[in-house]
């Protein structure tokens, strides 16, 4: 098997492992805590309730009803903020780990073409896709570009498979 294709597979494998590592760290520091479970359940319940209320409200709804919705939105915003604070612990730990890991992988794969792309990326993406690579062939793919693509695809799918992705209602109300 050629070195380049082996590198491609290795990077996909690294991406799976780092996604699992990130979820593992988050589980240890955050997901298994009672505070997080309580807050998450509260946020999901409130989000669904608020969404249902907003669907049924009409233009002619009374001021009192609108005020009630505003109060519920405020309560939900506070709970979302508390939830983010709880997750902050794991974000720091993951950030620290990943900075070290990325430094290591970048030096391992420095200057190596890890895949060939069947197209030439747009010029402002070439800075990433052709990072630290010799030559002018812009279809050469660097480690960081492939790793980013893998992470974007694999991490969310792993979160969904493990049942750790935030609910859609909660995500929508948090915006």
């Amino acid at each position: 098997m050629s070195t380049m294709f082996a590198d491609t597979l290795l990077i996909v494998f690294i991406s799976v492992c780092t996604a699992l590592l990130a979820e593992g760290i988050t589980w240890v520091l955050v997901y298994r805590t009672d505070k997080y479970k309580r807050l998450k359940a509260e946020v999901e319940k409130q989000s669904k309730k608020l969404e249902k209320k907003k669907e049924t409200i009409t233009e002619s709804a009374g001021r009192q009803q609108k005020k009630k919705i505003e109060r519920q939105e405020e309560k939900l915003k506070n709970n979302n903020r508390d939830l983010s604070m709880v997750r902050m612990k794991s974000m720091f730990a993951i950030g620290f780990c990943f900075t070290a890991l990325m430094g290591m992988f970048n030096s391992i794969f420095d200057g190596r073409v890890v895949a060939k792309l069947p197209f030439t990326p747009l010029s402002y993406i070439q800075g990433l896709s052709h990072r630290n690579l010799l030559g002018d062939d812009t279809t050469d793919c660097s480690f960081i570009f492939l790793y980013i693509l893998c992470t974007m695809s694999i991490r969310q799918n792993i979160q969904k498979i493990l049942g750790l992705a935030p609910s859609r209602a909660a995500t929508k109300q948090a915006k």
Partner: protein
Amino acid sequence: MSGGRRKEEPPQPLLANGALKVSVWSKVLRSDAAWEDKDEFLDVIYWFRQIIAVVLGVIWGVLPLRGFLGIAGFCLINAGVLYLYFSNYLQIDEEEYGGTWELTKEGFMTSFALFMVCVAGNFTAGHLDHLLHCHPL
């Protein structure tokens, strides 16, 4: 064919937030299935997109389909197939889910990234195989 729906099934519990029970997949190909849980239906759309991304990524990488034509083709097929599925086959009311755009957006970026990984991987494997055959030692 009768346009009416069958009697409603008892709600099948989801696994938490995104994974689907086997029983959900049995509803997927039934045009008269009832989708009481919106999240359940959106998860089906999401996973269908990922499957399409892997399949097209492998085909596009093996052919290979070069240039932005391949990417544009993926976007059209991904959006088009799912649109035909939920609009024509299942005949669901898109407004219940926030409109056609919300259904089209569901899982699109993740599937696009997955498609890119699959196409790059398969193209790399095919490209090197081609080089080996063109330049025998």
